[in-house]
């Protein structure tokens, strides 16, 4: 397909092949995760094509792009969630703090603690609020005493902005919370294991504007403490919460840059068409 070919041409504005990308012009913001030449196949079908990108601690990175362009697929590569899909095959290199996450010696359970994930639909365990948070630290052996665990539960809920709302009902079931609260519980659960990176796949798409605003505020507060990557279909949300934006199209990274630039003056016509609502 003609369009397909066009998208595969390396864009001038992106020089992200084998050399270090220019995510860090001033050198102060070293990348937390680096992906180089990543391809993902589902059986015969290629969903991600030669994608390279860096994500850093200091910035929230937003992945945007039309449905089916590979945002979730690539996000799942970043903590090896694609391992659970039998037909998925990932090639290329993804490193977390320099560690090759696809190396044979990489402990996947450990990896998913370091790189947490929050999904579109809030998915608390059918357990108490307390146990939802305590579960991760327990299995990862992060706490040795009840006091320590209590402290982790409280501080994680604090960080997720949920403590005030649930501190008197920690033994209630997590599933009894509202959708927005459940999503913040899931963020608290991700935070509890002291991750380095938090991946969020459309975390607000099931939430009302107020619950959404709370999550956005939370993301802003968590920024700098964790490297955060958020997939969103809401352009305004990407503009509000992220400092870096990556535009995906047909499995390729078309444009990656400062969010302000992407939304005020994108370099690529494809990006422009998408964010201004001229797509398709």
């Amino acid at each position: 397909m003609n369009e397909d070919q066009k998208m595969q041409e390396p864009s001038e504005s992106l020089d992200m092949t084998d050399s270090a990308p220019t995510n860090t012009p001033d050198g102060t913001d070293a990348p937390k995760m680096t992906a180089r030449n990543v391809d993902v196949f589902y059986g015969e079908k290629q969903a991600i094509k030669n994608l390279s990108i860096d994500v850093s601690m200091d910035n929230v990175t937003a992945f945007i792009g039309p449905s089916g362009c590979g945002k979730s697929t690539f996000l799942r590569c970043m903590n090896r969630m694609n391992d659970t899909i039998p037909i998925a095959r990932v090639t290329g290199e993804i490193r977390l703090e320099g560690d090759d996450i696809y190396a044979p010696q990489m402990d996947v359970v450990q990896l998913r603690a370091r790189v947490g994930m929050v999904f579109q639909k809030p998915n608390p365990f059918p357990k108490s609020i307390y146990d939802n948070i305590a579960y991760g630290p327990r299995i990862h052996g992060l706490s040795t005493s009840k006091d320590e665990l209590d402290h982790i539960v409280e501080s994680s809920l604090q960080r997720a902005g949920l403590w005030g709302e649930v501190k008197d009902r920690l033994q209630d079931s997590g599933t009894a919370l509202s959708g927005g609260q459940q999503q913040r519980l899931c963020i608290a659960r991700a935070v509890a294991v002291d991750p380095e990176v938090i991946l969020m796949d459309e975390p607000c798409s099931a939430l009302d504007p107020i619950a959404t605003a709370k999550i956005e505020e939370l993301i802003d507060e968590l920024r700098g403490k964790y490297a955060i990557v958020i997939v969103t279909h809401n352009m305004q949300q990407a503009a509000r919460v992220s400092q870096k934006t990556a535009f995906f199209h047909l499995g390729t990274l078309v444009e990656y840059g400062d969010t302000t630039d992407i939304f005020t003056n994108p370099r690529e016509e494809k990006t422009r068409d998408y964010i201004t609502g001229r797509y398709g």
Partner: protein
Amino acid sequence: MANSGTEHTVKAFDSDINQLRGMVAEIGGRSEQAISKAMRALENSDLELAAEVVREDKLIDDLEKRIDELTFQTIALRAPMADDLRELIATFKISGVVERIGDYAKNIAKRVPIVTQTSRLTPISLLPSMSKIASELVRDALDAFARRDAELAMEVNRRDQIVDDFYNSIFRAVITHMIENPKDIGEAAHLLFIAKNLERIGDHATNVAEMVYFAATGEPMPERTRGENPATPLDDALSDEAD
């Protein structure tokens, strides 16, 4: 050029944008006309035509308000991005600047009854050529907006120097005339104000051009090397802001 002309998925958005473009063209046309009518009234001491310019300034003011309203509305309802956002911001600012240009034309028209005898003063002979260039700048700046033409916008910016040069010549000639003919000081001052109004029109055309350049390219226009300016206290005092 920033706009490839592809249509938005939401057609009503295109219709808002097109309506705004039409209104900007109209306010531009009206202010251009106001300048030429005011200058014709001045040359022919045509008090009726001068009064018409003052009356018609209301239309420009109203148009500015309607442009601002629709721009606000479009920004609020459509949440525009990228070149759409830049265009709307430019539209908003341009309407304000063009309204000011109309005010300067009105200001010139208001002086017509007072300066009916200024024709004796030689520097007045320079005013028609000066006003011709100033209104060309207004026209070209708005054409540049209609065509998203960053090149033409730069060109307007450069040509404003000619208007400034005219002003500087007139300024010197009028001051010389005042010194030699103290009894003419009152009339000569009005003449100087008119020249200053035209000079400001040129500046405002330049402001429009800068916004056009930004809307089209997403970059600020490179600074023009500023020409010589009579930055005397006297000239500063003449910065007769239109009301």
